């Protein structure tokens, strides 16, 4: 079906550790994937995106990995900080401005 799911609903890490948030997608036609961070009471904030012609993309402290063979997406956050505590959503789409399909999200908690 048309859905994006996440493997774990919650993730708790210690400050300074690396975090890995996983996501499975089901639409083989999707060619664009995005990670958003959503803090309580706020709208989703863009973190990083990747297109299907790539398998890895790095940003500042974040890396997104795409495995099209198994339809899997992951977000790696290096040296996780308390400010990284939020719900993280992956979303898929076709092209950059078409509709996005979101999963339910993973709540990341960073313990000091």
């Amino acid at each position, binding site marked *: 079906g048309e859905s*994006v799911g996440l493997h774990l609903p919650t993730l708790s890490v210690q400050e300074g550790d690396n975090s890995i948030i996983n996501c499975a997608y089901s639409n083989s036609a999707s060619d*664009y994937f*995005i990670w*958003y961070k959503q803090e309580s009471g*706020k*709208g*989703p*904030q*863009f973190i990083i*995106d990747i297109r299907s012609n790539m398998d890895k993309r790095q940003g500042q402290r974040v890396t997104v990995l795409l495995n099209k063979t198994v339809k899997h997406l992951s977000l790696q956050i290096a040296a996780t900080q308390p400010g990284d505590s939020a719900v993280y*959503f992956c*979303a898929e789409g076709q*092209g*950059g*401005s*078409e*509709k*996005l*399909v*979101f*999963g*339910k*999200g993973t709540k990341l908690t960073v313990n000091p």
Partner: protein
Amino acid sequence: DAGVTQSPTHLIKTRGQQVTLRCSPKSGHDTVSWYQQALGQGPQFIFQYYEEEERQRGNFPDRFSGHQFPNYSSELNVNALLLGDSALYLCASSFASGEETQYFGPGTRLLVL
């Protein structure tokens, strides 16, 4: 550079009423998409507007309608409100070219009593 703005921030309505939510896109963006986010869920696509026309629509009833103005701002209208319409309504803007991702506003929290 102004980001996406939405108004109002919060709204309380009763069943059967109608509501209008507003969105101003990020400077330079020409496409506006609306999403509904129920508590504890990911956003769900309602529809997208480009050149003042609805370009794509998700699985939402006709009670949900919208409009885009020449300055690219947009409105979301919901008629005959149901309790289940209580949610965070998000607006996202982007370029129609598809070269840039969608950027979200802070949302409007709608509570239907």
